[in-house]
């Protein structure tokens, strides 16, 4: 057991923390709106090898563990960088596992449609769908991959995310039935884990911004950070940060272990990857929503103005998670694994 980052994880955090701090100050995030994709930044990130870091060594990737990718995703979250790191890493790993690898080192983006295609065969509001040349997702019982030029534009949205509807027609079927569901479930769990990690990064920055602001801003001749009402509100942030960090790390740890783990809720003994990933995703997303809410509020009116950075985090804390759908639906999915399926009504 080791409940603190390993040396390797520390190094990755330092290297990519430095990369994003230098390459992606808030001005870059603003300039990339409304699409939410900075092709130059993406190309430089591809240059570092990060997007292929988690891919199989056999295809030229770095063979890194999910735990390592989670460290990078956290740094993406800290700067709310306009790059589809999470989607691309997850989709490429899925394609590698199915033996249809996109080339390593290319700047073309791959992504995962998180929700199955509708009756008309369209995947709606696919994350990174506006900029991805490759989309993988479920169509009925099949796991389908399409290639094609991305639309390049996104409908105006809350978090300035490069989302788009994508057609699944004409795609290649990669797997069917149980094999398709299994492969997709793992990819989706990886997406949840890395998105949870990005949320952890958002919480960290939201807390930093809030503390800097309440220490500097004076009202009634005192720093507003000396008011207990502000303190009690902000004291929740380290709590949810600690919880989200640990649960996300546990999900990533489970993702790196072979086979399925246990789901014993009666004893709070849960080591199963897809279940932990869903739990981490729910908790980290809610924690990021709370943290950005509290941090924005502590800024008073300025927090609501475009000029301050907290609004950039506030919107992404919601958008990056809600693109997967209603969290209550995720709860019900987890309930089936934890408590058994709902009884069929005769």
């Amino acid at each position: 057991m080791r409940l603190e980052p390993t040396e390797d994880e520390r190094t990755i955090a330092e290297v990519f923390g430095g990369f994003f701090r230098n390459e992606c100050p808030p001005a870059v995030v603003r300039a990339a709106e409304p699409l939410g994709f900075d092709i130059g930044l993406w190309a430089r990130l591809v240059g570092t090898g990060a997007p292929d870091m988690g891919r199989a060594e056999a295809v030229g990737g770095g063979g890194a563990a999910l735990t390592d990718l989670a460290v990078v995703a956290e740094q993406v979250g800290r700067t709310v960088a306009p790059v589809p790191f999470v989607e691309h890493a997850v989709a490429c790993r899925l394609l590698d596992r199915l033996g249809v690898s996109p080339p390593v080192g290319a700047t073309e983006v791959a992504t995962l449609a998180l929700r199955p295609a509708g009756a008309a065969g369209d995947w709606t509001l696919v994350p990174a769908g506006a900029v991805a040349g490759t989309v993988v997702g479920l169509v009925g019982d099949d796991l389908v991959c399409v290639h094609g030029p991305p639309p390049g534009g996104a409908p105006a949205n809350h978090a300035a995310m490069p989302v788009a509807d994508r057609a699944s027609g004409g795609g290649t079927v990669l797997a069917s039935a149980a094999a398709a569901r299994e492969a997709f479930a793992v990819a989706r769990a990886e997406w949840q884990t890395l998105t949870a990690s990005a949320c952890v990064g958002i919480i960290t920055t939201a807390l930093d911004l809030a503390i800097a602001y309440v220490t500097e801003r004076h009202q009634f001749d005192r720093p507003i950070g000396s008011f207990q009402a502000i303190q009690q509100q902000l004291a929740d942030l380290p709590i949810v940060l600690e919880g989200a960090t640990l649960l996300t790390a546990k999900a990533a740890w489970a993702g790196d272990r072979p086979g399925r783990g246990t789901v014993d809720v009666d004893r709070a003994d849960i080591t199963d990857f897809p279940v932990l990933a869903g739990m981490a995703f729910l908790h980290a997303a809610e924690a990021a929503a709370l943290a950005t809410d509290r941090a924005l509020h502590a800024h008073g009116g300025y927090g609501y103005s475009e000029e301050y950075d907290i609004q950039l985090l506030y919107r992404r804390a919601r958008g990056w998670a809600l693109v997967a759908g209603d969290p209550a639906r995720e709860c019900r999915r987890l309930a089936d694994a934890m408590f058994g399926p709902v009884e069929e009504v005769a």
Partner: protein
Amino acid sequence: MDFSLTPAQVEYRERIRTLIREVHRPEHTERQHRTGTFDSPEINRALAAGGFLERAIPGYGDGDPIELWMLFNELEKAAVPADGIAMALMVAGVIAYVGTEAQKAEFLPQVLAGDTLVSLGYSEPECGSDVASAQTRAVRDGDDWVVNGAKMWTTMAHVAKWVLLLTRTDPDVPKHRGLTFFLIPLDLPGITIDAVYTMGTERTNATFYDDVRVPDRYRVGEVDGGWRVMAVALAFERGLMGGTAAGVPLLRHFHHWAANVRDDDGRRLVDDPLVRERMVRVAVDNEVAALMTLRTAYIAATGGLPGLEGSMVKVHATEAYQRAARWFSEAAAPAALLQFDQPGAAAEGWIEYDLRHSPVTTIYGGTSEINRNNIAERHLGLPKAR
């Protein structure tokens, strides 16, 4: 990070589970609710006989704080009343940390035998959160001290042999600097113990100290060095020693009951979408509480004192427990209102019990506000608001 347990840890956990299965009986729970004494002498003795206790004193022998965490985590998950043994071990940890060799030799074997309980005498009628303004006086008289004053909420004092007593030894310096701790036998002349009953059945006590002569060898830590001892005691208490897993038996009790009852529309209660959502949210909160508690143990195991982390997990776990008690009492209403032994009571009365018991958890052991103050001041570095 790495969340795997060593084979030895897994085996240790299995041995605790077996012990609980073999020793814990429903009558012990029934006795807990009837008497208000949250203690199981049977479990304590079995733990002593099995050699568990010596490994469970933080900082003592070859005990691993991860095992300490496991012990309390398993007891709490099984809803075994363990407040008594937790307090005894916590004080044993304090003595192992700051006590003299003579104190260790006299006191630790008693706790390890599993039949000696210890109470905590911090709070007073006039001070709880501001515990550093304790007024109970200890005045030096030759080789002895003479103690006068009153303590409130001295839980377990009616069954305990010892009390860890916070006293004022210097009234003329800033309040944190004039405090001294003693660990004294409760049968010394001049001590009276009056029962105080609570909404959650739990019995506690008011204790009074009337010219109690206390030999100096019972002093714990330096004269006027009480605040340092307090930091150690609080770091062990919050998180490490239980109190953060109450949501686990609550969820289990509710789930097993809800799987076997039908709502007014004839549907299994456990199949209601909102109920399912809330059960999952409680399971998530439980997992977070477990991991945060485990981290306090890990910090202790790697040589640190998890004071802040203890505050964090206490706030999270207790507020989550209250949320769960509210949700499940709504879902199980009106059967949730029925108490133990009443026909038709939801989860045999556990839901009603948790609704009554949970409010105290954000009060004792440091209120949520006090813990948040700690986090804001010591972790976030914000200026003192008080």
